[in-house]
């Protein structure tokens, strides 16, 4: 059997092995081709080999230690048995069955180091961003450099950490840096040449609609970073991208107004970048509550008629249902119990504020904390249960403010936030029924509040995630019952994926310094060594 598998692999990688737009469109299967699994961001795999019945016998298959890594946020992609992972200014291609390195590419002259969330795949190409904002295209098979394009200046407060998103013939990339002053944007590039096709700023230019929501002097530095890539609806040809906090993070006296389009979800036309609609979750944010969490695209009946919806779990403590064709607000539900800055949202989705919850020079306790009620810890949607799975955080922090004149790129964020010793916080993985907003189950976790773990849903009925103690965990999708865990020994700041090679399903995730892959237990067989001839 194994030789058959070998020959299939040996002869199966032909031109058909190209990653086509249509392949990504189909969503995850044996491969995991884009950060959120598919364009809809559901992070749900149809693989069933690992199920609630056998996940208890999951074992590590391999570990790839990433040299010099610390705090990895890479999110593996897998195509045809090859896994692509990133570290700062570095891409690795690994044998996804063994963890053995096939190639590595490093940008040794990048002017900045930083976290990186992963690559995009299209055709025979791998795309990723360097920390100093170059988009790089490599040959997927060899790691050879094909082109690179600088698309932002670190001298203007920018850096890059997001995995790009490849759609049709183009690659979308964003920028980070909202905590020290910058102006965010999403840009589209030709996948074949790197030519920039369009750029849409997430803070309006002077005189443009929305600029009236700002003090003029902060229009060039007001933040709204785009440090998590987005999702895509092929029928509407719309991209859904979330934006970061307004700057200065914790003091809004110099930026009176809603500060569009910070802490928002924006819908962009793929061809032109034109903003079709926006929805701002936290107008005039002063708690550093970026909106960076995956917009999950779900089609389901709403008030008796089929609708194209987008779910968004927000750092401000609510999770939202919007109509993704129009941006119409439909419902917001409390994600967490510790939520005291708003009593709810009004009919248009605007938060109903509780007075006195802004940061103060002396410090003000506010819930959720600065980490948010959730964050980039990817949620998932399981079409079998019909439930939405979200890693939530029950935490309050002490928020302080400073009215000092804002100075971009000087480390000034208008204040800060620190742990409240009385409410140290804890993680809770929760299942919600989107039809009603009802919590179906929850799984509280212990830990030091250092993790950032996302979720993965599978047709085997297992929800994979990680806890705040370095364990990869498997929970029952319907009950939340813990079925299996494995102590990876390090803080986890990314989300698991699943894939299949030669008929065997794997679950993979990065820890702080390594990439782990797990599969069902199989007893080892004695190895028949081949005859080896070394010519020297």
């Amino acid at each position, binding site marked *: 059997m194994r*030789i058959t598998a070998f*020959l299939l692999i040996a002869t199966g990688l032909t031109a058909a092995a190209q990653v086509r737009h249509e392949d990504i469109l189909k969503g995850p299967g044996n491969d995991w081709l884009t950060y959120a699994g598919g364009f809809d961001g559901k992070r749900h795999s149809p693989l069933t080999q690992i199920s609630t019945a056998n996940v208890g016998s999951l074992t590590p298959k391999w570990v790839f230690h990433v040299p010099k890594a610390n705090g990895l946020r890479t999110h593996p992609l897998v195509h045809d048995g090859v896994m692509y992972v990133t570290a700062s200014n570095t891409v690795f291609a690994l*044998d996804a*069955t063994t963890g053995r390195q096939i190639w590595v590419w490093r*940008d040794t002259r990048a002017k900045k180091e930083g976290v990186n969330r992963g690559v995009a795949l299209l055709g025979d190409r791998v795309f990723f961003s360097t920390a100093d904002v170059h988009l790089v295209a490599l040959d997927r*098979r060899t790691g050879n450099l094909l082109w690179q394009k600088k698309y932002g200046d670190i001298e203007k407060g920018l850096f890059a950490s997001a995995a790009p998103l490849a759609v049709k013939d183009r690659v979308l990339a964003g920028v980070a840096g909202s905590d020290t002053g910058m102006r965010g944007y999403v840009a589209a590039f030709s996948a074949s040449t790197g030519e920039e096709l369009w750029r849409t700023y997430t803070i309006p230019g002077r005189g443009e609609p929305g600029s009236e929501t700002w003090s003029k002097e902060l229009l060039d530095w007001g933040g709204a970073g785009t440090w998590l890539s987005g999702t895509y609806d092929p029928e509407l040809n719309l991209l859904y991208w979330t934006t970061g906090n307004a700057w200065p*993070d914790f003091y809004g006296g110099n930026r009176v107004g809603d500060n569009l389009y910070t802490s928002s979800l924006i819908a962009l036309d793929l061809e032109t970048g034109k903003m079709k609609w926006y929805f701002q979750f936290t107008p005039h944010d002063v708690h550093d509550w970026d909106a*960076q969490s995956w917009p999950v695209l779900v089609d389901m009946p709403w008030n008796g008629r089929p609708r194209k919806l987008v779910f968004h779990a927000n750092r401000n403590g609510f999770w939202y249902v919007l109509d993704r064709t129009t941006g119409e607000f439909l419902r917001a539900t409390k994600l967490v119990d510790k939520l005291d800055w708003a009593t709810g949202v009004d009919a248009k989705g605007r938060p109903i504020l509780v007075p006195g919850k802004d940061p103060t020079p002396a410090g003000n306790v506010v819930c959720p904390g600065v980490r948010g009620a959730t964050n980039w810890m990817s949620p998932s949607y399981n079409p079998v249960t019909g439930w939405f799975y979200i890693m939530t955080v029950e935490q309050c922090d002490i928020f302080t403010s400073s009215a000092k004149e804002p100075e971009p790129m000087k*480390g000034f964020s208008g204040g800060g*936030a620190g742990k409240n010793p009385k409410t140290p916080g804890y993680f809770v993985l929760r299942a919600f029924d989107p039809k009603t907003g009802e919590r179906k189950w929850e799984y509280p976790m212990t830990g030091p509040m250092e993790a950032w773990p996302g979720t993965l849903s599978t047709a085997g009925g297992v929800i994979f995630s990680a806890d705040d103690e370095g364990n990869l965990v498997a929970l029952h999708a319907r009950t939340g019952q813990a079925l299996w865990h494995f102590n990876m020994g390090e803080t986890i700041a990314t989300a698991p994926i699943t894939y299949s090679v030669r008929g065997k399903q794997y679950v993979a995730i990065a820890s702080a310094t390594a990439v782990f892959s797990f599969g069902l237990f199989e007893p080892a067989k004695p190895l028949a060594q081949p005859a080896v001839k070394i010519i020297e």
Partner: protein
Amino acid sequence: MLAIMSRIPYVVLPLLIALPLGAQSGKKKNPAIGNPAAIEAGRTLYMGGCAGCHGQGGQGGRGPNLKGRGMWHSLDDEGLFKTIQKGVPGADMPPSNLSEDQLWQLVAFVRSINAPAVEQKIAGNPQAGEAVFAKAGCANCHQIRGRGGLTGPDLSNIGGTQTAEDIRENISDPAADWNESYRKVVAVGRDGRKVEGILRNRNNYSMQIQDAAGRIHLIAIGDLKEYSLDRRSPMPNDYKTRLSRQEMDDLVAYLSRQSMRPPETDSEKGSN
């Protein structure tokens, strides 16, 4: 944005910001840096006073390796100057009595042995080197920006990752590289089917081969009846004699310009 950063803005962020800005301080380079005459003068000084501990090629010995990236990355030119001038207290490296000009010549030499080629002044003509690259058949195996063969290492960023000296050595003496990667391998399955290509990795349990079309083959060792690995470099070993000195200089100059990033110039640094 990132909560972990926001929670410690007063302490950590200034440090984070200081690193990139500090690396772009806008200081003018000393004219000795990259100046061939200064480098040669520095080489003479180095061989007389430094090579005993740091090795003739800077490879290290009693003293640290000066060619390693960590060394040149962590010290800027002035840092290197001061280290040579004042020595390293508590270590064996003594202070120096050399003049400032001589110290800068030494800095220029050390930079020349460890700076990536694109940052170095190269004697040859890059345009002429491109013709040599074509004539010598380099593109049969090597790619630059997606053009060329797939069986040799990519050269698109070679000037940004290797010194000119290392590029020259790799062309002149390819056999000196004992890395198994890119060596020819032939693997035969237990039913006699064969995969030929270049080795990407191997151990006792698996092997990763890239064939001539670039396809990756993931092979479990237990599935193989036999395999052969030719550890000799497939690169022709006669370029040292086949190319004239001028052609070699030109080829090195051309490859030195193959860089993902252009050389840094003073105008690029510290513009704000």
